[in-house]
């Protein structure tokens, strides 16, 4: 309750929530605002925004409605961001918790794997995964989750390492409680707040990764995606730059919203750190 109040009192959290809510409404309402296939031909290609009242944001070089793609793209970005973040969080928390709680050989082995993932440039690994498993929206989402978990694991491990030596955890050991109880009931709830805050960073990165992949035309071509639109706009960049510019602003605003919400969560959940700002 206190955390919620603190959250609502922080201006970045409010601004971020409003932005994110707007994107959410765009995504959920996409079918209602723009029924029909957003990738279908809508009108004469390359109409500037405002030129034709039917297309407030203009049309791209294939004559598709940019506004429709923007709305449907919101849905895809948020969905990929959310699912990939959940995957990354699950893998990262599980590995970080086990490594941090047990230490020793378990820790060494799991951290070697984490290091291996972190040594590999994440975007390069993403390219390899897409090259091997294909680029449907499902594989892209899972692949983004797979390349994003190492920082979550490191953070969770660090929290577990300090928490597991705390007296209250030791007291539970002395009380004869099982490891499962110690990990799930005692340590995890205390380790979670910074991880939840960090999830906002993972989500921002996931959305950026997908859009970069789509920009290179390596994501699912059958799904409307902001990155895809920016990539297609490249061919007419010198004259009709708005085709690339508009979806870029959408990505920027979404990431901004996610980051601000993360900052608000941080202020609310980690009050000690927040006092500095």
């Amino acid at each position: 309750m206190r955390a919620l109040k603190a959250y609502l009192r922080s201006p970045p959290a409010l601004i971020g929530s409003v932005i994110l809510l707007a994107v959410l409404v765009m995504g959920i309402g996409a079918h209602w605002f723009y029924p029909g296939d957003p990738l279908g031909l809508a009108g004469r290609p390359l109409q500037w925004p405002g030129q034709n009242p039917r297309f407030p944001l203009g049309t791209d070089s294939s004559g598709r409605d940019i506004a429709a793609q923007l709305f449907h793209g919101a849905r895809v970005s948020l969905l990929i961001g959310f699912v990939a973040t959940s995957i990354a969080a699950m893998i990262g928390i599980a590995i970080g918790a086990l490594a941090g709680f047990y230490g020793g050989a378990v820790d060494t082995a799991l951290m070697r794997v984490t290091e291996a993932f972190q040594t590999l440039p994440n975007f390069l690994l993403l390219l390899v995964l897409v090259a091997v498993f294909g680029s449907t929206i499902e594989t892209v989402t899972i692949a983004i989750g797979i390349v994003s978990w190492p920082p979550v694991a490191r953070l969770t491990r660090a929290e577990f390492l300090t928490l597991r030596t705390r007296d209250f955890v030791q007291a539970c050991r002395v009380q004869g409680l099982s490891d499962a109880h110690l990990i799930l009931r005692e340590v995890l709830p205390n380790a979670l707040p910074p991880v939840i805050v960090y999830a906002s960073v993972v989500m921002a990165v996931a959305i950026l990764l997908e859009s970069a992949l789509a920009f290179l035309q390596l994501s699912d071509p059958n799904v409307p995606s902001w990155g895809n639109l920016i990539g297609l706009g490249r061919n007419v960049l010198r004259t009709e730059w708005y085709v690339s510019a508009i979806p870029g602003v959408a990505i920027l605003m979404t990431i901004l919203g996610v980051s601000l919400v993360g900052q608000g969560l941080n202020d609310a959940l980690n009050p000690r750190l927040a006092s500095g700002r």
Partner: protein
Amino acid sequence: MRVLRLAGRRLAASLPTLLLILMGMFLLLQFAPGDTVDALMAQIGGGDAAFAEEMRRFYGLDAGIAAQLWNYLLRLATLDLGFSAIYGKPVATVILERLPPTILLMASALSFAFFFGLVLGVIAARRVNRWPDTLISTLGLIFYATPSFWFGLMAIVVFSVYLQWLPAGGFSDITQSYTGIAAVLDIARHLVLPTLTLGLIFLAIYLRIMRASMLEVLSLDFVRTARAKGLSETRVVARHVLRNAMLPMVTLIGLQAGTMLGGSVVVESVFALPGLGRLAYESVVQRDLNTLLGIVFVSALLVIAINFVVDILYARLDPRISSES
């Protein structure tokens, strides 16, 4: 001596990591539809099954996976990365040609991000909660939220198309043959926009970390001691706070070396720079898995090398390293 020992230890510890990456990658590529021979056959316009069989034997692809992996690792040990069917050259040669632009780009983007991240972070922390801090923190948030490829495209529109100040792409002006200083300046001109594009998000990250770290260090006991000694604020910050506050930032460079290399894939594609990242993109599109695997190997080496340098730097900054933990 202490620093070297530590760095050597870290280098030795990264060998198993490298091995893990190579094994993982090799096994992963076994899932890929089509192998080198398929790619080759496609290149030469098809052929019969017997010929393909013979080629497979020639490339050692008929052996079991474990044997293939072992052979692959043995060849890597001699820095033999195999042959690129697409480029018609050994993979090592192809990669070596493409390495310099990437290293140059990363070095300049890192310097840009580190320097300005440091300066802006310090300014924001010194003016915490006043307008310079609000401005810098807001800018940091926006930079962080900007997709690099989009920023690159917009920079091209503004600086190359409209203002015509800077070239829109390429590593050097191929219509001229500059030598000496002129050639260096030419490359520098070509690298300005890519550097800004790649460095922007890292600038945002560094300035945020630096600001937080400065605030954290400013609240520590030894800063109070320094003030009680009657030192001026400038001296307190310059002599006591700055070095301590830089430690997390230095750690971050090592942690994010991989991310930066990944970012250069996109940036090199935007600016048509003939670097390692663009090569990775091309080999994915052309399904040149041999080259892709080689790039993964070289990237891992590069990241390990950067971390090695960062470790040395860190140990020089912090005398506590290695005598504790």
